Structure formats: C-alpha cells, structure tokens
C-alpha cells in the first residue's frame, strides 16, 4: 500500500527528514527532478512533499495526479524559499470550485 512519504527538494531542505524515515530525493537540476518524480510516480508513496522550485518545474506532472486519491502532492517551502506557492495552489483549487477566490479571503480575514 501507499504508506511511505517522499520528499523531493534541494539537498539542504530534504536532508533533515531522512533520519525521520522519509524517502528523500535530493535534486539540483530539472533532469534530476524529473528522474526523482518518475521514481516517486511508480508508487508506494501516499504523500509526496515537494519544495517550491520543484513544484514550479513539475507542475504539469503534478496536476495529472490531482484527480487521484493518492499520492497527495503537497508543496512546502524549502530552506531559503519565500513560501506562498502552497497558498497559491490552494487559492487555485478554491477558484476552480467557487469561481472566485476573493469571497473566501474576505470571509476568513
């Protein structure tokens, strides 16, 4: 079953997760990112964390998994990245469902 967690990102971001039992894929260029994604997509992973640069590179591939229950691909800020991409991904989902994301933002603020 899909019971493992993968983390694709630059080596600084992923290193700390290795002792915690997460399968880490340190990558530094787009070829490595794609290779790592291919390996992850083969299965066994319930959750895939990706850092923001990786998400930017693999957006299409990740979008292809959006309608399946697993893997759950989640964007997290890596070491030294600004954050906000995960939030944007959420906003897109809201926009897809409601047709606007402005409404929700007001409601929450």
């Amino acid at each position, binding site marked *: 079953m899909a019971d493992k967690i993968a983390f694709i990102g630059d080596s*600084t971001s992923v290193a700390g997760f*290795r002792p*915690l039992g997460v399968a880490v894929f340190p990558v530094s260029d787009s070829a490595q990112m794609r290779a790592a994604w291919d390996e992850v997509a083969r299965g066994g992973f319930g959750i895939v964390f990706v850092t923001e640069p990786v998400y930017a590179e693999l957006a299409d591939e990740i979008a292809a998994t*959006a309608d399946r229950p697993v893997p759950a*691909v989640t964007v997290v800020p890596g070491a030294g990245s600004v954050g906000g991409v995960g939030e944007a991904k*959420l906003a897109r989902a809201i926009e897809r469902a*409601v047709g606007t994301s402005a409404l*929700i933002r007001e409601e929450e603020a």
Partner: protein
Amino acid sequence: MAVLRVNPNRMELLKLKRRRDVAVRGHKLLKDKFDELLKEFLARIADSRRLRREVEARLARAYGLLAVARAEAGRTDITQALLAGEPAPLISTSERNVMSVKVPEIEAGEVPQPGGYSLGTMPAVLDEALEALAETLPLMIELAAREKAIELLAAEIERTRRRVNALEHVLIPSIVETIKSVQMKLDEAERGNLTRLMKVKEMLEQQRAEEQGSAG
C-alpha cells in the same frame, strides 16, 4: 433556444413531457449535491489555511536551526550525520466517501527517533533541529491529507456545476420550448380540423336546402 426536431404528434408530446420531468428531477438532485459539496468544501478551507501557515512557520524555524548546526559542525559532517535512516512506512492510507468523492484518509504513524550520529561530535542544536522537524512532520502529513481532499472536492464541484448548468440552461429550456411548439402545432391542426368540419357541414346543409327547393 433551439427547438428539438421531433414529429409534432401526441406520442412525442407525452415523451417530451416525461423527459422534462426527469430532467427537472435530475437538476434538483444535482443542485442539492452541489450545495452540499460546497458546504463541505468551505468548511475545510479555513482549517487548511491555518494549518498551512503553522507548518510553514515551523519549517522555517527548523531550517534555521539546521543552518546553525551546519555552521557549527561543518556542512560535510552534518550531511554525513543525516545519512542515517531508511525510508519507513510512516502513514497508512484509506479512502473515505464524501458525497461520492473518494477522499484519502491518512493516518500518521510513529515518527522514528532521529539518531545514528555521534552525540559527542555533533552540536546540540542539531538535536533541536531534528526534534523540531519530527514535531512538524505529523502536521505536514495532516496538511497533505487535507489539501488533497480539498483538491478532489474542488474537481468534483466543478464537474457538478457544469452538469447543473447544462441541465438548467440548455437541456430543460430546449425541452420546454419543444413542448410548446409541438403543443401549438397540435392545437393548430385541431383548429384546422374543426373549421373544415364546420365548412363541410355548411356545404351539406346548403346542398340539402337546394335539393328540397327543387323537389318542392
């Protein structure tokens, strides 16, 4: 609205009325489903936002501690210290049905204790950093499950909305329009028939009157 091409007779009219009733019923059901999905969706959004913010803040802190550890002990040493550990089954996934959307349920298991490096040579701040990461990981797992559920719900909501709109703005109006036009054609035929009968009656009466006139 486009009128469907059907023969204007009573049989077709009955069929169309039946189709209209089914479409209206389907529309109502889908609309209810849509409302319920949206409710579920909106309820999840705020929680997920809050969780994401917390995860991002905690991660930033843990990365900060790691950077300090790296500065104290040197990059290569830290990298080696962190080589310990194997990918372990950390979660168990199952599926739950929310309004016919299969949403993953992800249970976080035990996060293994980080270790396998020399406590003597590694700075204490590395322990702290790993502890912070270990505390954050269950939250990250939770976040992943929630965001996935939100994405799946969003996709289903979009699909449902399209269906509702197609029924409401295309199919139902066109059936209604067709019923009206068939009804009108039938009425027109009925009126034509009636006038013809009246005309025939009149002609017959005239004929009879003439016959009586010539006989008398």
